[in-house]
């Protein structure tokens, strides 16, 4: 778990904003980086056990004490502290499309505990703005649907999608005073990092540069929507920094609205890397479903970097 804090004053008013990012994977790291870059937030890793309930309970207590201490200290220095904010971000847990029921159940339990913790803080510090931002997955909940618009209803196909919908619902049912925002990104990709779950595009570039073969669980013409992690993190940070969600609920689909086939990606990667890309196809029926989005499904201020540019960026960073 990552805590990012920034305290500052503006016309004599003490202001403070704390981000608590649960799940520091591809998206979580990008959000933290964006906060550090954009607004001078200071980050510190905090212990948070995902598997041991007792340790987790103690971690929550430590975190609560830490937050209370921050605000007590800050309140001493300022008369008006009403504009202090805490933003929870659940930027996806350890589970993915292929996760088994036991892992999914564990993630759901952890998620519920974090939401409950945020509820408690809302009760305890009711003069603060507390928001909860959940990174869900439109790739999962709209799987198999093409040209998705705002009118499409989620049709979950696999347990992971049901988990995401259950998380969304749990958050929506949480304390009314808690600001709620749900992001539904499509297939998110970013730089190659072996410590994170690696998506198709970076692995294709990495393997391509080394003449390794990449296994594709799909077919040459499987359509997916790939969205660059920095586009997603920039949007989330902008929303969480500059908008107040107090008593509000917002849901956003974050996709590129540029459907791409595996063959299309391969072609772009080949021209970027300057080598032949070797692929083996495993047309698993569950992975053949197409997925694409219409621009009308996206928020107006969501800017998208082109697939070609992002592939060049990832290649350059490798």
């Amino acid at each position, binding site marked *: 778990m990552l805590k990012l804090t920034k305290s500052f004053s503006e016309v004599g008013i003490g202001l403070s904003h704390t981000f608590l990012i649960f799940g520091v994977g591809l998206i979580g790291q990008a959000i933290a980086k964006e906060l550090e870059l954009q607004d001078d937030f200071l980050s510190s890793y905090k212990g948070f056990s995902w598997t041991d309930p007792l340790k987790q309970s103690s971690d929550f207590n430590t975190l609560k004490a830490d937050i209370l201490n921050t605000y007590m200290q800050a309140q001493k220095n300022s008369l008006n502290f009403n504009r202090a904010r805490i933003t929870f971000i659940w930027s996806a847990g350890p589970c993915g499309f292929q996760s088994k029921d036991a892992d999914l159940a564990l993630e759901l339990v952890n998620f519920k505990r974090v939401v409950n913790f945020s509820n408690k803080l809302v009760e305890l510090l009711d003069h603060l703005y507390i928001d909860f931002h959940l990174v869900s997955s439109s790739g999962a909940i709209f799987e198999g649907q*093409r*040209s998705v*618009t*705002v*009118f499409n209803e989620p049709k979950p196909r696999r347990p992971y999608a049901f988990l995401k919908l259950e998380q969304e619902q749990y958050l929506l049912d949480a304390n009314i005073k808690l600001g709620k925002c749900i992001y539904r990104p499509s297939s998110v990709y970013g730089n190659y990092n072996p410590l994170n779950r690696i998506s198709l595009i970076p692995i294709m570039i990495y393997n391509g540069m080394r003449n390794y073969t990449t296994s594709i669980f799909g*077919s*040459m*013409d499987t*359509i997916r929507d790939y969205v660059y992690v920095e586009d997603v993190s920039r949007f989330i940070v902008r929303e969480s920094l500059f908008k107040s969600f107090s008593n509000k609920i917002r849901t956003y689909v974050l996709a590129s*609205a*540029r*459907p*791409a*086939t595996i*063959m*299309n990606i391969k*072609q772009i990667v080949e021209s970027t890397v300057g080598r032949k890309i070797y692929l083996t*196809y495993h047309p698993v029926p569950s992975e053949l479903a*197409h997925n*694409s989005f*219409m*621009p*009308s*499904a996206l928020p107006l201020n969501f800017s998208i970097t082109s697939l070609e540019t992002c592939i060049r960026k990832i290649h350059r960073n490798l």
Partner: protein
Amino acid sequence: METLNISTITPVYAGSQYLEELMDSIVKQREKWKNDAYHLSLKEAIFVVDDAIDDSIIILQKLALKYEWVRVINLSRNFGQHPATIAGILYSSGDWIVTLDEDLQHPPQYIDDLLFKVAETDCDIVYAKPTTSVHRSVFRNYSSKLYKYFLSKISGEKIGFFNSYRLIRGSIARATASVCSHETYFDVALLWFTQRVEQIDMPIKDDRNINGTASTYTFSKLISHAGRMIVSTRAKILRVGMILGILTVTFAMGYTIFVVINKIIAPEVISIEGWASLIVCVLFFGGVITLLVSIILEYIAVILLHIQGKPTFFVVDRSNDSVLKNIFLDK
């Protein structure tokens, strides 16, 4: 029964006066498929604005606000109709893709006929075949036909079928669009992926041209269009060069033997001293050079096809075609 998704793609350059009417026709077709309980759905209408010279973009933006299934792609400069079509295809996700002109030259109500042809013949591409002269200019009509006929003959492909009103299997269209470079002729590249190409008679014509409005295709654009077609079929043309080279060498060798034998058996026939050795040298080296050039041309042909992205293979799934058969043949 599964529902097939259809995408339409319309490159836009100077079509502001036609776009609303075109959109009305697309909407009617979409509603027809909904009402008649067809298992067809017009999921997206993609308009690719190719740096339009009129206010098409404003009209399209309004249409995109009105219909959430309309997608407007704005190209950064004028790239031409084929690159615009390719861009549109790369943004599509339909099972079948229909390409339409902006000026109502290709009425959307005929899409059913194109789909019917697929149901009937199991093909991957259906081109509209105008039953009347498409353009006002007789010269343009016939020169276009003649040019396509010539290229069909030397390339061995169905180039004569080409028309911008076409129905293409989505997976093949996207794969083709992925491999196209800026000098690739899209329809020629389609033939790298499939040979199942059909044509259907249709009463379509270029009203804009016939009514006297200037065509957006200038003479220089047409020449560049024709040039691209040659470049894309160049591989076959280069092979013709190689055959010519081999023929030249064979002729040179034969004629050399003839001259040498003549010189030995009947030296009086060649009255000029040195002519025989000169002609033997010219023929021999000319033949060798032609042969070497033709081998280089063959290498270039291979490199060209590689650069243009001609695939080694492509896998296609035609299992959904049964839906079209159920709709159009079982009725």
